[in-house]
């Protein structure tokens, strides 16, 4: 009985201590950080904060732990709580947000683990009217790893780092709604200013589909890009998405620059099993040089994986970064758009190594997509007199490298 009583006291004490710690964490600043006494929180200014979306969605499932660990949610929750604590009106927003705000804060996080801690580094810029940089810097906060609750460790690190940034903003800018009226929109900022230009979140391939300079690619290459750079030879262009389909994994972007060469689709999109094809892409960037990489193979099958739709199988080797590239016949007609490959990892566990099992969206569906979205394109009948050089040249002359930035 005495043991049970001691246990109850221990439990109650731990409960109270934990509750106090939670309340304390939400309302106090990290050690060594102070806010001037004359500043009352929250300060009266509206704020929109941009964080690259791939960080906000980050999560993983360690099999040993058996539950999801969600750094992205930790980042969202902690930053949201801190913004609310420091500013009268604040929100996390995407690069296309059109609501006017007084301050626009762009945050680029970086997670590290070191000596039993999870550390978050925030690089940040604060923008005001006419895209003027009012403040920029870098703040770091480390929180101890809690093996029982890794998401909480991520939350604590993000909470501390967010508080450090917010404290610096209010201390150095002393913002209020008169000084920084709500006239600035994230959507009006040049996307090149807010993205991390040193580290594209994805790279892929596209190809000109018409003389207007519109480029076809796989939709997943452009997923959540705040800025997509199109590069052909030494020329680079910005772009905007004209049409996109998650279901087909297909998209068209507009470079705004006319193209002298573009790929026609094979009329009626008839596929011949075994016919030779060329695939061109910009794989494994930046490990491989940024010059187009051409591989050759055959149409292996009219079908793809069980349950897939609108795809065929081809054998020309592809790598990460080849997505969105054209699969071109020897006659120089577009047969398909590279979308995926058979993943080797799960099959290796069963003792099988898949070789050159790659998938492309059939150009028949690309044509339907283009018609549906009123995008110009050309169709030509199958050219039986084509040869390898003609097909290769048609593919090489029209491909572009795509880099997605957030």
């Amino acid at each position, binding site marked *: 009985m005495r043991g049970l009583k001691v246990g109850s006291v221990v439990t109650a004490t731990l409960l109270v201590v934990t*509750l106090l710690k939670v309340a304390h964490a939400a309302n106090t600043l990290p050690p060594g950080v102070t806010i001037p006494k004359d500043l009352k929180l929250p300060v009266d200014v509206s704020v929109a904060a941009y964080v690259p979306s791939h960080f906000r969605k980050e999560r993983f499932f360690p099999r040993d732990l058996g539950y999801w660990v969600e750094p992205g949610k930790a980042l969202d929750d902690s930053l949201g709580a801190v913004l609310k604590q420091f500013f009268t009106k604040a929100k996390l927003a995407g690069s296309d947000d059109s609501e006017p705000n007084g301050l626009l804060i762009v945050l680029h996080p970086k997670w590290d683990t070191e000596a039993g801690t999870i550390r978050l580094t925030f690089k940040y810029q604060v923008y005001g009217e006419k895209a003027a940089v009012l403040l920029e810097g870098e703040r770091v906060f480390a929180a101890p790893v809690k093996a029982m*609750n890794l998401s*909480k460790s991520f939350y604590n690190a993000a909470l501390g780092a967010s508080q450090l940034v917010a404290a610096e903003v209010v201390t150095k800018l002393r913002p209020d709604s008169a000084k920084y009226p709500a006239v600035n929109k994230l959507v009006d900022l040049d996307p090149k200013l807010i993205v991390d230009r040193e580290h594209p979140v994805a790279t892929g391939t596209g190809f000109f589909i018409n003389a207007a300079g519109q480029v076809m690619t796989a939709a*997943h290459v452009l997923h959540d890009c705040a800025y997509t750079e199109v590069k052909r030879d030494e020329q680079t262009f910005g772009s905007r998405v004209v049409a996109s389909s998650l279901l087909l994994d297909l998209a068209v972007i507009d470079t705004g620059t006319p193209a002298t060469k573009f790929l026609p689709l094979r009329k009626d999109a008839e596929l011949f099993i075994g016919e030779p094809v060329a695939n061109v892409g910009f794989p494994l960037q930046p490990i491989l040089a940024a010059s187009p990489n051409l591989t050759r193979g055959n149409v292996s099958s009219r079908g793809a994986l*069980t349950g897939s*739709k609108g795809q065929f199988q081809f054998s020309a080797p592809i790598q990460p970064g080849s997505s969105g590239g054209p699969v071109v016949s020897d006659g120089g007609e577009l047969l398909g758009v590279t979308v995926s490959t058979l993943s080797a990892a799960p099959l290796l566990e069963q003792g099988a190594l898949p070789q050159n099992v790659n998938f492309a969206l059939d150009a028949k569906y690309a044509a339907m997509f283009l018609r549906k979205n009123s995008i110009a394109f050309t169709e030509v009948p199958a050219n039986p007199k084509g040869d390898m050089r003609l097909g290769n040249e048609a593919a090489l002359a029209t491909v572009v490298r795509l880099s997605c930035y957030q």
Partner: protein
Amino acid sequence: MKFRAAAIALAFLANVAGATVLPPVAYNGSVAGDELYTLLKADPMFAGLSKDLVGCPIVLRVTHSFVMTAGGKASGLASAIWSGGTLGLLPVVTNNDLVITYEVLVNGTVLTTYAYQRNFTRAVNIWANDTTYGLGKDGLEWAKGTVTQFVAQAAKDPKLADLASEYQFYFGAPSN
């Protein structure tokens, strides 16, 4: 009476005709896979659900997570000490929020998400064979109940209706 029954039947048919029926969907679940899968597949909207469609562009992913509560953390620690001290004779009592998340992905991109959360206290005996996937009896029953909530919300989701419509445009009506 006959007239009334016919009116009810017509209303039902009109409702069925207007409901979204999804094309084939691949199922991917982290917990209670058989139980949740069977319940989902019984609904006409998810009649095309399958565990075998490895290449399907549309995937329903059902995952679970536990969110620790402040009180649960303290009592769980004390309970673990007690359980350890008795070499597992006493069960570990935990209290946290169970979250069941339903996500519809299209070619790997999340199209829509629904999450359901409830607090549970569970007594876990480390020597016992757990047939509830670590959810506890009440947790498993509640998790099964989330299927009804999810299906009701999914039926009204315009993103899923658009997806079904786009699928039909490109590939025709699903045969399931």
